[in-house]
């Protein structure tokens, strides 16, 4: 329960910090931390406009997409405190409930019949397909390492002690940050700020959504970021008491948001054709973790 509350809190300011970081690095003052959230609330108060060419799928897709993210959030633990739902193999559930949401957002985009949205949908499908092995090799390695298959057990029994395991922790953090960027269609895979339909991935899929639905999709992104932030924070909040672990959690979210902002400020987006290659390198990095775990467990050599 505690993790759900904390993630919801983090989701309120996460995007604000990214935008603020980007503004400061480009020499502007930038909007307030809560501005993105205020925009979403404004959208929630509005009605939605539906194109006549769309069917009910387009109308239910945003809600299912959002619900899937919420479901995924429920399994995230906070240190040794399990999530609202916790069972063996819940990280598989986590990945596929997110995939279900993505599936609906993709068919929702296809439902509009726009050539742009089809293009965006195919790109998004490809990228999350490619990112999947990275996540599973990463979590699988940790499952192998700890001998447990649920998030909460994995994180409670992760002991960092040897140099290799520290290296693994850093690698895992990097991979999770990058997976979060891919899953949220942010730089360097996609540019959320662009106005050019032809270069968009996620933005072009939601061109037809408006009002409440759009608000849900946008808030979904915030929630997803905070969710991955919480996953990363779990590497650092072993079994400290609350007065230490909660500040650590918030600090990790804060630093994560700043890293995202920095990544988006000083890099250009990758060429679309190179994205697949880049995502594959994440998989090979997570293979490093896998081999590291094998080393620690003395399964090889």
């Amino acid at each position: 329960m505690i993790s759900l509350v904390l993630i919801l809190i983090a989701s309120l300011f996460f995007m604000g910090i990214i935008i603020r970081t980007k503004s400061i690095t480009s020499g502007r003052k930038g909007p307030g931390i809560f501005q993105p959230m205020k925009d979403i609330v404004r959208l929630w108060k509005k009605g939605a406009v539906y194109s006549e060419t769309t069917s009910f799928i387009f109308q239910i897709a945003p809600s299912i997409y959002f619900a899937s993210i919420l479901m995924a959030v429920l399994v995230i633990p906070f240190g040794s405190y399990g999530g609202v739902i916790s069972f063996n193999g819940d990280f598989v559930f986590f990945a596929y409930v997110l995939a279900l949401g993505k599936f609906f957002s993709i068919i929702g985009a296809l439902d509009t019949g726009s050539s742009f949205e089809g293009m965006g949908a195919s790109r998004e499908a490809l990228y999350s397909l490619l990112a999947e092995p990275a996540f599973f090799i990463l979590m699988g390695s940790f499952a192998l390492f700890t001998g447990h298959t649920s998030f909460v057990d994995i994180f409670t029994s992760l002991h960092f002690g040897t140099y290799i395991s520290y290296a693994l922790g850093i690698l895992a953090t990097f991979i999770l940050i990058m997976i979060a960027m891919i899953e949220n269609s942010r730089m360097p895979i996609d540019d959320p700020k662009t106005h050019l339909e032809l270069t968009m991935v996620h933005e072009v899929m939601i061109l037809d959504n408006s009002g409440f639905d759009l608000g849900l999709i946008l808030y979904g992104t915030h929630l997803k970021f905070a969710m991955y932030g919480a996953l990363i924070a779990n590497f650092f909040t072993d079994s400290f008491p609350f007065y230490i672990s909660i500040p650590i959690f918030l600090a990790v979210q804060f630093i994560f948001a700043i890293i995202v902002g920095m990544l988006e400020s000083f890099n250009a987006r990758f060429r679309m054709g190179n994205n697949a290659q880049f995502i594959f390198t994440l998989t090979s990095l997570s293979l490093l973790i896998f081999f590291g775990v094998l080393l620690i467990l003395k399964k090889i050599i």
Partner: protein
Amino acid sequence: MSAIAIKNNQQIPVSSIPLVDYHDFLIFNTSLLKLEENHCVNYFGIPKNNTIQLFCCVANDNNQNILISSSIIDKDKPYPSFSEQHVAFEKFEREIHENFGINYTNHPWLKPVRYAYDRQNKSNTITNYPFFKIDSEELHEVGVGPIHAGIIEPGHFRFLCNGEQILHLEIQLGYQHRGIEKLFLNKKRLVERNTLAENIAGDSVIGHTTAFVNLWESLCKFEPSDDILLSRIIALELERIAVHTGDLSGMCTDIAYQLGSSVFGRLRTPIINFFQQWCGNRLGKSLVRVGNNNFPFTNELRTKLIAVLDKFEPDFDEMCKETFHAPTVLGRLEKTGIITNQLGKEIGLVGMAARMTNINRDIRSSHPFGYYTSLAHQPILKGHGDVQSRGQIRREEVKQSINYIRNLLNNIPLKQKEVTTNLQLTPSSFAISLIEGWRGEICHCAITDEKGELIHYKIKDPSFHNWLAVAMSVRNNEISDFPIGNKSFDLSYCGHDL
């Protein structure tokens, strides 16, 4: 003699242009273009009863000559086309076909150009534009526009794609035909015409206005004084600096490089703000006027401009270094949207787009006017023809223009006492004016009748040639690279549509 050779900004009696048979006219001009140093700067027709008098102007890059030839053809007869021999004529002939209904027997495809109000065939409308179509299950069409995502100007882009790969792009313009060329004839007062010239394309105010005033002054046999010429060249080079910098910002935006986007955007502002201080308009409107210098360049302005440039230059250098050394930026710019030298010559590219593929074509050096005659301008050339080359050209041209301005500022001539000259057009004359605007060669032509009234005014923006290059450059590129490729050319929609 099939043609008369004149220099830039020279006026000649219309009767001195040799009239030749269409067949000779065709052979003469197409064989001229077989030489690489020649390119067609303008080719247009004037209706006379049931005939059309065609004028073809071919400029030579090496000997400062512009060859003007002319032929009279019948409206109703079919004629062989120039485009069959040389694709650079393709658009000019489409325009002649659209305006007068001349049927070319072997033109590749006489598509509408800009849907002029007085076009021959009124049943051709923008809704039934004949797109190139393909019957295929595997390929798909993506249509973008006419409303641009960044709400700039209207233009429709139709892609034929194999997945993410572009096989073919067709660019359909003509959404905003204002009939500027006709307005030049209808508006009788000089100030109206001057203002019209300022509004041909909002990003080339100085370029188009300078072309207009040069043309007008040569038709009036008016010799502008040094202070007028100085103001014009400073304004033209400043416009180049401002737009190039803004384009670098736009290119950074399109590849989501936020740092470059915001810094170059900020750097453009002091330059256009200097125009505001100089003449009260950030785009330089009302600055360039025929036979007059309303806003002489004073020593006070000189101090201000030097201060602006001194602040601009170090920041610009630093940001360019940062941008053109960032691996992620280079990864997007290099080998994207390539135009080969060969293709560039076939299309008849002009201006910056020509120089990026190593075609030495720059009016400032090939047909210099005003202060450029003493500048000994050396065009900046790049060889790769990709987006990176177009970025680098901008970077170096900005530096070059700053140097030119600094040198010019060393010696500011005093404003001459205004001499009330009689700005009367010479009757029965033809004049041509070429200007190297920031985008490339701007060409204005005018013809007067026996009473000294304007009977034809012809404008050619560099975009007219170069749009074809955009369409060719994206072939086999990823569709997501189209925006950056398009921005790197930064062609004008209204300059094309007029």
